[in-house]
């Protein structure tokens, strides 16, 4: 694939109608430029101003305002830019799908971030299976040197301090440091770690401006986001769908497309992935997918993962299996996480199996409190959030399980099934 040089006049394009990130019909550079045009030649300060106006927040899960992060890193220059596509969350597919369909938007975003922060070096830290796709895209373009690094397939490999450690040639494990990575990260330099989707959105803001960006979505959650929506009642390994969703869309509309099951037949949905929050259904069906819309449920969009649960399935059982996975994914560096997560998972599994009475719930609550805020990364906190939301949303089922029964199998003696 070859490209012809464009003059600025030829390079300008109208913003895409409909999907923004998924507007191009193939991943090649010529199509990318044909769809989006080139990035206008404006100053770093002007670019940053547009990001501020856009209200863009990080799409990796934490939702931190991107302009503030860019500003801090710029103030601590010289800087390094890292595109984070580790996507260690096994239920998430959106970063891989974005890199498959629009790698040049992500690479553009890296260049825009480097321009704003004055970075002369950049990394793309990616799930191994997308590395060849990104290398292919890089071969089509010139400009900033971007080093591609494969991230190990672990849950915590994408935590910011783990990314910095991995890029320095160390293990991809969260690290304790006196300094924040935006002060001192890769090679001792201020480091901007941004999720790949955040960078792709940045590439659009650099072209069409902050006002355009915020013209979709809600005042507190601007623009679109990528959602990984799982089919109902399938094993979590089944290929989920990745959709570009406008912030503020009611949850009902996203769930309507899941495996042909009407949303009314669902009892809950896990929003935000394994570190996410269960939302009760049908109560939350009309909740807008935005910060303000999910706040009443103590939830956030996280990295946009949605796992619906049918009425005929047991939410405690699914939560127990996720908790077991999360316990196994502890990096085993921090004592309360190393010992606390297995204990928590075990206590929760006993509760879900209907093997314990009232004391089982107390044990779960106690072990949840013992992991919160007691680690070098967010893994224990995220696990605690999942557990607390399960106890809240499946409260009736917790009571039934204490008596050896289960809401999903009313009338069946649980002990007899197992």
């Amino acid at each position, binding site marked *: 694939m070859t490209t012809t040089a464009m003059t600025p006049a030829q390079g300008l394009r109208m913003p895409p109608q409909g999907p923004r990130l998924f507007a191009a019909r193939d991943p090649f550079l010529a199509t990318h430029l044909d769809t989006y045009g080139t990035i206008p030649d404006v100053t770093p300060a002007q670019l940053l101003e547009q990001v501020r106006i856009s209200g863009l927040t990080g799409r990796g899960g934490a939702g*931190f305002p991107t302009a503030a992060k860019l500003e801090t890193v710029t103030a601590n220059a010289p800087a390094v830019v890292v595109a984070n596509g580790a996507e260690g969350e096994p239920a998430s597919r959106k970063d891989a799908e974005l890199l498959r369909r629009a790698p040049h938007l992500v690479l553009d975003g890296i260049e825009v971030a480097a321009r704003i922060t004055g970075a002369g070096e950049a990394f793309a830290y990616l799930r191994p299976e997308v590395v060849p796709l990104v290398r292919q895209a890089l071969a089509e373009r010139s400009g900033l040197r971007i080093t591609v690094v494969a991230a190990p397939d672990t849950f915590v490999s994408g935590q910011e301090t783990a990314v910095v450690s991995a890029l320095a040639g160390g293990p991809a494990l969260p690290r*304790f440091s*006196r300094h*924040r990575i935006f002060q001192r990260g890769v090679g001792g330099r201020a480091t901007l770690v941004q999720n790949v989707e955040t960078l792709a959105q940045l590439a659009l803001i650099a072209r069409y401006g902050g006002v355009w960006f915020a013209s979709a979505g809600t005042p507190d959650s601007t623009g679109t986001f990528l959602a990984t929506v799982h089919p109902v009642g399938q094993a979590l390994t089944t290929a989920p769908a990745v959709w570009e969703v406008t912030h503020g869309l009611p949850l009902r509309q996203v769930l309507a497309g899941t495996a042909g099951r009407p949303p009314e037949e669902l009892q809950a949905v896990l929003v935000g992935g394994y570190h996410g929050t269960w939302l009760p259904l049908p109560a939350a069906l009309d909740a807008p997918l935005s910060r303000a819309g999910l706040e009443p449920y103590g939830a956030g969009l996280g990295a946009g993962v949605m796992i619906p649960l049918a009425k005929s399935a047991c939410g405690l059982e699914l939560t127990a299996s996720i908790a077991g996975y999360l316990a196994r994914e502890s990096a085993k*560096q*921090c*004592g*309360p996480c190393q010992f606390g997560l297995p204990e928590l998972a075990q206590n929760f599994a006993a509760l879900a199996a209907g093997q314990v009475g009232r004391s089982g719930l107390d044990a779960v609550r106690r072990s949840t409190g013992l992991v919160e*805020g007691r680690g*070098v990364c967010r893994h224990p906190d995220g696990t605690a959030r999942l557990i607390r939301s399960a106890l809240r949303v499946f409260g009736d089922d917790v009571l039934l399980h204490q008596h050896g029964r289960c809401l999903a199998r009313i009338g069946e003696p649980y002990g007899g099934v197992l």
Partner: protein
Amino acid sequence: MTRPLVVDWTACRGRGLCADLLPELLTQDHWGFPENRSRGPILVPDELEGPARRAVRMCPALALRLDAELPGPR
């Protein structure tokens, strides 16, 4: 002024000296790791700064740090 006492959880081995030196603020969980008596960050008031500094100095794993100000978002 209160200062946060920061635990490097990757270094802490739960020997318990800190809980011994700062019983007003810390206890030990059942594995021996320091546990804040109140929720959230461990905040050291002025009158406990002496014992807190001693805990930082004496920690066998060098896992404690007394910061000057509250941590920002991580």
